[in-house]
């Protein structure tokens, strides 16, 4: 019988993989993909709670808001990455150190 715990463990695995990518990748686009994994894991959690624990649709409404935030986040972040690439000819985050004192 599939229950709430199964979905929570899958979401935890997605979250941990996203954190791993966030910490170990140097390419900015790769880091953005990892952030999408983390947001998706939060969404799985919200929908699973909406189905098994809360008994109403509130979790799904919040998941829609998370999707909206993810869409605007990726648009602005890619604009920043492209500007950085035009400025420094590299997508590596370690090279974005011109603010360093």
């Amino acid at each position, binding site marked *: 019988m599939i229950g709430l715990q199964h*979905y929570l463990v899958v979401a935890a695995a997605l979250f941990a993989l996203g*954190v791993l*990518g966030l910490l170990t*990748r140097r390419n900015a686009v790769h880091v953005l993909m*990892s952030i999408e994994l983390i947001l998706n894991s939060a969404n799985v959690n919200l929908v699973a709670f909406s*189905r098994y*624990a809360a008994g109403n649709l509130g979790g799904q409404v919040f998941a829609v808001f998370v999707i909206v935030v993810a*869409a605007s986040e990726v*648009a602005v972040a890619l604009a920043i990455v492209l500007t950085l690439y035009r400025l420094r000819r590299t997508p590596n985050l370690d090279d974005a150190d011109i603010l360093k004192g």
Partner: protein
Amino acid sequence: MSGEAVVFWLFASLTVASAAVVVLSRTLIYSAFALLATFFGVAGLYVLLGADFLAATQLLIYVGGILVLLLFGVMLTHKIYDLDLRTETTQIASGLIVAGGLFVILAALALKTEWPGVARVPAPTTAGIGRLFLGDYLLPFEAASVLLLVALMGAAMIVRRRRDA
């Protein structure tokens, strides 16, 4: 095993395996296409959870919008004739420790806790979500529309080439 369990394990393994490819693959374009499989797997989990509207939204916005945007990012930050789209990795040991520890803690928490069980009977959700958006969640809904507008204008402003520069 019931049919639901078979489908759940299918989508769960698809999601986690392709997410692992996204993170661990050294070629950026492989990661982007593995992300496609991850989004499909999550959409399948939504269907299993009785969230039909969200599954469709996931496919439309994530696969149709965000993934295409990320592919543009891959293409524009690498020269197309540069076939070697490899990315570097740093801090692999400490990253593995942090991510593994997080997974163990979160999974143990999920398995050990006694969750209150008020299961929702699966039913079409679109009408209910629409009523919630225009009722209880009207203010966040309007704020989200302003957020989208600001994000689009901000993105266009940031990438604009300045004439004077």
